[in-house]
């Protein structure tokens, strides 16, 4: 049985179609990432799967329970961490954990032990009596994770878990996530950080409520683009950005800082591109073939679906 099964799931808000006939399966024990820009329907999907937003049409099953009719069964068995780290800022670290342990009915005897475990896991030992509101972003995030898994759920939903958190904290957060995944927990997360999606076993690219790609990150990088990707260093880059799309054989041009990523048809060589640029009076420093990153694929997919 898949941890999450979604069939033609749709949710509209008035005229807006937030999630548009989404179909996917999340396997048990995998880290599944939903990658997409803001407003692409990631959060709405997660909220539907957690049973806090009713689908307009379609089906969703989470751990075998129907999202529309059995949401209370789902809620007892999943962990959920929202974008805003919904901690009680006027409660201490320990009080927050105790509160959620009570709500999830972690038995009295087990509770103290479990709370201690989570405090250690979050690296908050010694800070048990500190108010959650006084913690830094990374600590809040790890405490919120602790609250979400206090009842040891087999499936964990993370909605933009690392938004607004410094890189070092993101690292240690991912170490925790890997640890949970190794322990058999299925992780379903949303992110708009492309590099973060690389950590996942599989990535779904979301755009305007539709899934435009679904594959392991490596596969997406390797097969997600049709053509060859060239990295071009030239001066002035802006002129090249305007000129290159008019050249036959060039599919897409994207500016990355001072560099251009140019997607060309496979027969089109680096030398031919350099020659074309020089003929236009643009000084070319280098043109070389590169492996596409997830970002290249993502940008290309977004372009082609607009």
């Amino acid at each position, binding site marked *: 049985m898949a941890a999450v099964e979604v069939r033609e799931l749709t949710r509209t808000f008035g005229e807006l179609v937030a999630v548009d006939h989404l179909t996917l399966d999340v396997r048990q024990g995998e880290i599944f990432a939903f990658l997409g820009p803001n407003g692409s329907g990631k959060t709405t999907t997660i909220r539907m799967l957690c049973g*806090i937003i009713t689908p307009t049409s379609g089906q969703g099953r989470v751990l075998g329970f129907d999202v529309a009719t059995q*949401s209370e069964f789902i809620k007892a068995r999943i962990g959920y961490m*929202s974008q*805003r780290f*919904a901690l*009680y800022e006027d*409660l201490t670290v320990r009080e927050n954990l105790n509160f959620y342990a009570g*709500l999830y009915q972690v038995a009295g005897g087990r509770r103290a032990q479990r709370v201690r475990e989570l405090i250690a896991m979050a690296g908050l030992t010694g800070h048990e009596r500190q108010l959650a509101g006084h913690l830094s972003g990374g600590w809040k995030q790890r405490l919120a994770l602790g609250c979400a898994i206090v009842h040891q759920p087999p499936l964990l939903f993370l909605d933009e878990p690392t938004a607004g958190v410094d890189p070092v904290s993101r690292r240690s957060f991912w170490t925790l996530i890997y640890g949970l995944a190794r322990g058999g927990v299925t992780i379903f997360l949303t992110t708009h950080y492309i590099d973060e999606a690389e950590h996942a076993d599989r990535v779904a690219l979301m755009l305007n409520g539709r899934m435009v790609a679904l594959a392991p990150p490596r596969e997406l990088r390797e097969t997600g683009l049709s053509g060859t990707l060239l990295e071009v260093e030239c001066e002035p880059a802006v002129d090249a950005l305007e000129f290159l799309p008019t050249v036959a054989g060039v599919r897409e041009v994207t500016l990355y800082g001072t560099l251009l990523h140019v997607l060309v048809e496979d027969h089109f060589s680096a030398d031919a591109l350099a020659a074309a640029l020089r003929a236009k009076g643009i000084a070319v420093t280098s043109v070389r073939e590169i492996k596409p990153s997830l970002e290249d694929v993502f940008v290309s997919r977004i372009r082609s679906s607009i």
Partner: protein
Amino acid sequence: MIARVWSIVLKEFIQIRRDRRTLAIVLLLPVMQLTLFGYAINTTVDHIATVVLDQARDAQSRGFLSTFFNTGYFDLVGQVGSIEQVRQAIDAGTARVGIVLPPEFSRDLVAGRAPRAQMVVDGSDPNTAQTALLVAGTLSQRSAARQAIDLRPIVLYNPSMQSINFMIPGLLGLIMQFQTLLLTAFAVVRERERGTLEQLVVTPVKPWELMLGKILPYVTVAFANVLFASAIGHFWFGVEFAGSFALLLVLAAVFVLSSLGLGLLVSTVSQTQTQAMQLALFVMLPSIILSGFVFARESMPHPIRELGLLIPLTYFLQILRGIILKGVGVEVLWPEVLALAAFGVIVFGLSANRFRKTLD
């Protein structure tokens, strides 16, 4: 189930303790209301500043004046020499009443004729004027026709006619209404505003567990304050409780239910704490004015008076005054109790119905 409710109760208590605004509502509001309404709103008028123009100046006139001032309703602030000076004293506000005894006052009194005396009253404060006229009327009747009418009024329920006796029962109701409404209004909306509600609705907590857990701490607080206010009313302001205090507490629970329901309703329809605050005030103001807390409902014009029937405090005030002042029980108060219970059930049902565990 009980464990979940208990977790929420515990959490709310910790939050009450840590949030300065909530703590102020819990601890300071009742004290403030007791002080303000107990002292400032005093409709009992005494110690009225009075000037005297005594043109008789003899034993009889002095005797009359001393009876007059011995009532305690009037304070002598000065003797004046002419009727103009009486006017001036009242114009300047140094006196509210002037007594003028003519030279023939004692002669008439001794001769058995009704002596004439004049009382000049500042009518700008009708309350003062009325008291002055009433006392003067009674006195002159007594001293002028000693043998004639022996009218002894008996005042029921509030024999000393102290407004504090009328005010304290009302205050109990008002404090309960203020606290429960304000605190519960904030209770849910605060979680919505801070984003913790989203986290709560993905837990297996049931809506009624959440509502109960949120309400219980405030019920406790409200009852603690009723006990506190009753104690102050009794021991400090000297209000006697004529009826059953136990019955009062039971019926207070019915009232609290309706007030909490109202608060929850405010909380579920508001998106921010500011909105909740405004809505709560919108409910509270009519409660104070229309319920009969300060102004007698009997003197309100008709549509306004009926509007008061939509306010739970109106019924509760009748219950409170009935029990505390008249000492009556359910056999008399049952229509009010029924109205209150019906109100509570409706409002509570509405708010529980409005609160869904979804973010749709």
